[in-house]
């Protein structure tokens, strides 16, 4: 069935290191992908998005890579900081899907000092 899933439920990194959070999706019709960050006690917050006609997009300290061949998405965080500790979700939408985002199960990122 259709799903958006994450490889690792928890990722621990040292402060200053780079973090890579992975996400797999199964629907080849997926057209748009978003990464959200959810801190404890808060709602998900938009980080970065990418359309299916791109394979890379960069933001401030974050990069999203999209590999449509293997239906894989990753979020790279450079120089990870304690404030990056949160649960990260990938989400996808598809042409004709309206605003119905399908979320993955989330990865807990823990930054160790």
């Amino acid at each position, binding site marked *: 069935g259709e799903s958006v899933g994450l490889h690792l439920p928890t990722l621990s990194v040292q402060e200053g290191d780079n973090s890579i959070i992975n996400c797999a999706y199964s629907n080849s019709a997926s*057209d*748009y992908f*978003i990464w959200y960050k*959810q801190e404890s*006690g*808060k*709602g*998900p*917050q*938009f980080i970065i*998005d990418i*359309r299916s006609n791109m394979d890379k997009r960069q933001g401030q300290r974050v990069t999203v890579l999209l590999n449509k061949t293997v239906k894989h998405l990753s979020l790279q965080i450079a120089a990870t900081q304690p404030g990056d500790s949160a*649960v990260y*979700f990938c989400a996808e*939408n*598809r*042409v*004709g*899907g*309206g*605003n*119905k*985002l399908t*979320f993955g*199960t*989330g990865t807990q990122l823990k930054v160790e000092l």
Partner: protein
Amino acid sequence: DTAVSQTPKYLVTQMGNDKSIKCEQNLGHDTMYWYKQDSKKFLKIMFSYNNKELIINETVPNRFSPKSPDKAHLNLHINSLELGDSAVYFCASSQVQGATNEKLFFGSGTQLSVL
């Protein structure tokens, strides 16, 4: 200023009760949503409204009734609460309905605990 605000933050109630969660957005967006997040952090859409009109209803039990008095407000009323309704409920909004690449702006959530 809070863009999407929902109240209450915490809601503890007995099984069988009826409760409401309110949501307001001051972003001028046309579309609003309710999402449910379970204990494993899985987020799933429940409803979406565009300019007061129901657009998405994800086979949610009819004990859940959203109401949108205007496009800036989307409230969620739950009748006959059950233990399985315990979750965090998030309100969200986006600018345009039907676009594939719309960012959602989320509220801070309502933690509902049914005892």
